[in-house]
């Protein structure tokens, strides 16, 4: 089922890409309706699921259903071998959707037999797949409606914060830059950046391996990496950050465990990056989460006392791999679909054929990210060391003062913000806590973190991973 859904979405995106040069409008809705026929049990190992894909809104403007039919017919044999025609869905099911997004531009229904595992795990996989799709197509509101075994569930995959970026060849993408990490307790309301800021890497040409060319893949192939670090801590220049996870979704799905990506930690120069350990998380659990996930760990023999006292926010890095292909001799939709399938099938070979260049590109992005992290750590250590001197010097004067007025004034001041401060020992603790908070969580508002409008950024956008 996922394969088929993927093919339909691929078709829609290719059509969208063709029209993009004519129209910059994005936004709209995509409805995926999955249901089993009434009275048919899905308890059996093999079950039949009906699927309807409906699209409406500006993102699919210009699609002519009548013109699409011949394309679908020619694609059916090669792209949808397991697909059977099915009944159209109940119009009532579609009415809510059309009320939101206008008249349907696309309505495709098909039935897939021999679909295994109509279970909640399968449903979770579909949802995860759609979420991954939504990462780079954030302008499209996705509605997933499942009616399986008499149970109905409705999921709306809407993106709270989007950002349009322009890759090479003026390809526009709408990325999901929402940061769902809650702000730490000491951050004031309205002072937390809820979106990431994509950093666009350079375009890297890829050479097509001979065996792939023999299969019919020609033209120019390239990859562009877009890095998205969340949560954004630009407004808090003094806080230490710690990269804990790296995920690398791509616009071309990676089917099954990728040897290239699994071995990536071994070929990266972790010493240059200042990383102690970088390893690939289990692919099995993450295959539908979008790309490979890596875990970053630190060795435990750094000074644990100092490490624990420094305020640290954990961050995750999304490294989008955007593969782009162009061939002046390929313009028909069927050919474009076939090309994309070829790239998907031979992705591993292509990456291995360009191993050095791709690894270098990943190394550069990680270096930029970790440079800012290391810089923050040094700044925080400086603040921490100085804070100790400030506190000890201040307390030395307070403790040795013979002026009761002065001592009482100091004690009374701190009594305002914390519970009763009775002696210099408690005063020292209160001062330490306050100094830590005001210096570590110093807030410097940045226009790009708190602007409300969505911007379009060209290729040379300022990278957020290189925070200087």
């Amino acid at each position: 089922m996922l394969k088929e859904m993927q093919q339909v979405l691929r078709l829609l995106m290719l059509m969208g890409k063709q029209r993009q040069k004519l129209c910059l409008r994005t936004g709209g809705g995509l409805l995926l309706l999955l249901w089993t026929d009434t009275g048919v049990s899905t308890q059996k190992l093999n079950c039949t699921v009906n699927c309807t894909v409906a699209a409406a809104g500006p993102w699919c403007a210009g699609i002519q259903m009548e013109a699409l039919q011949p394309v679908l017919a020619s694609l059916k044999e090669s792209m949808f071998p397991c697909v059977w025609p099915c009944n159209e869905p109940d119009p009532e099911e579609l009415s809510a959707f059309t009320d939101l997004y206008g008249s349907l531009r696309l309505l495709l229904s098909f039935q897939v037999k021999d679909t295994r595992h109509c279970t909640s795990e399968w449903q979770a996989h579909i949802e995860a797949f759609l979420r991954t799709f939504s990462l780079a197509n954030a302008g499209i509101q996705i509605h997933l409606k499942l009616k399986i075994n008499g149970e109905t569930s409705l999921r709306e995959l809407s993106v709270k914060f989007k950002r349009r970026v322009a890759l090479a060849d003026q390809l526009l993408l709408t990325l999901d830059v929402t940061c769902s990490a809650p702000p730490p307790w000491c951050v004031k309301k309205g002072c937390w950046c809820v979106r990431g800021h994509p950093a666009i890497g350079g375009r890297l040409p890829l050479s097509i391996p001979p065996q792939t060319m023999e299969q019919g893949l020609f033209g120019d192939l390239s990859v562009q990496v877009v890095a998205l670090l969340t949560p954004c801590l630009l407004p808090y220049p003094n806080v230490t950050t710690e990269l804990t996870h790296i995920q690398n979704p791509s616009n071309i799905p990676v089917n099954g465990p990728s040897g290239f990506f699994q071995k990536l930690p071994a070929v990266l120069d972790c010493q240059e990056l200042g990383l102690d350990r970088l390893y690939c998380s289990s692919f099995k659990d993450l295959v539908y989460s979008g790309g490979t996930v890596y875990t970053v760990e630190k060795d435990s023999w750094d000074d644990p006392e100092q490490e624990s006292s420094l305020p640290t926010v954990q961050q995750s890095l999304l490294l989008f791999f955007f593969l782009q292909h162009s061939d002046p001799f390929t313009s028909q939709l069927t050919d474009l679909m076939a090309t994309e399938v070829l790239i998907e099938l031979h992705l591993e070979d292509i990456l291995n054929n360009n191993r050095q260049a791709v690894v270098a590109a990943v190394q550069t992005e990680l270096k930029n990210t970790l440079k800012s992290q290391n810089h923050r750590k040094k700044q925080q250590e400086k603040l921490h060391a100085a804070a100790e001197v400030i506190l000890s010097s201040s307390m030395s004067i307070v403790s040795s003062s013979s002026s009761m007025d002065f001592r009482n004034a100091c004690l009374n001041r701190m009594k305002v913000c914390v519970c009763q401060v009775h002696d210099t020992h408690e005063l020292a603790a209160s001062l330490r806590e306050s100094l830590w908070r005001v210096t570590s969580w110093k807030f410097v508002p940045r226009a790009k973190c708190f602007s409300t409008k969505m911007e379009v950024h060209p290729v040379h956008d300022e990278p957020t991973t290189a925070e200087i």
Partner: protein
Amino acid sequence: MSSQEILNRIESIILEIVTSLSKAEAPVLALPNRSSWANVRYFDLNMLQSVTTIRSDCPSSVTKFAQILKILSVIYRLVQSNSYATKRDIYYNNTKLFGSQKAVDSIVDDISCMLKVPRRSLHVLATSKGLISGDLCYMEEDGTRIDCNSSSTVNIVSSAKFVMIIEKDATFQRLLDDDFCTKLSPCIIITGKGVPDVNSRLMVKRLWDELHIPIFALVDADPHGIEIMCIYKYGSVAMSFEAHSLTVPSVMWLGLLPSDLQRLRVPKDALIPLTKRDESKLCSLLERPYLTSQPEWEKEMKLMQQNKVKAEIQSLTAIAPDFLTQIYLPNKLRYGGWI
């Protein structure tokens, strides 16, 4: 100013820090800007300044903030216990925090300026630098009698006819070798070995206050020498807040004057062309607010600017080896060759 007043001022700074933290605000310190002449006004020999802030939440300034607090706590302890320490002691007690002696020296002066008290009231002493010799005896508080004739505050006694400030140690030694202090009228010679420290300036000021005899300056005929002379006479930008206790406005320029170079026909190979830095410093000197009251000094500086050459006092040896002590200085002093 009493010790208690100094302690009170330090306590008020700490209280401001505690108050800021109680309001969840990052503490800041306000330091007078001692690095630019633009922040100095010359008005009846008093100099005023603007301030800059040192923040505790900025990594680029937090170390300085900590250094200031540390030295404040040291000063507090010294004043409270009526003991003394040198700037060197303070540095060596925490070399890692301060990084260099220069940092300590600068911060002690910053604190002196911030608290508006003379540095000596902070119980922090400078390491000795200047030298003094000549017809001068004085007695210290503990009864020790210092006779400056023999070598190297209270009850200054002298029959010296004048005091001569000498820019360089080398010239000072030369005059000692030639027995200058006794051959001509009884006099006192003093050198700060270049840019004078506070103690040297204090000594000159003290001599003027007690003896009221002419104070002459013998410096190289170059912008650096003129600047050193101006420090004795008008004060430095760094210590401008203490100008009233350190300056001697009656200092007179004895030599080496730019006009002397022409008048004495100093050989051309003994003259040095002005560098760009010299020219820049000369321009800066000519723009100093106090120069308008010294037209003759201005004239000499413009002559130097016009001729684009400078010379050291040692250039007079090109005329004759003992020209300085046998001819130049005696003639200058006898016939009023000072401005």
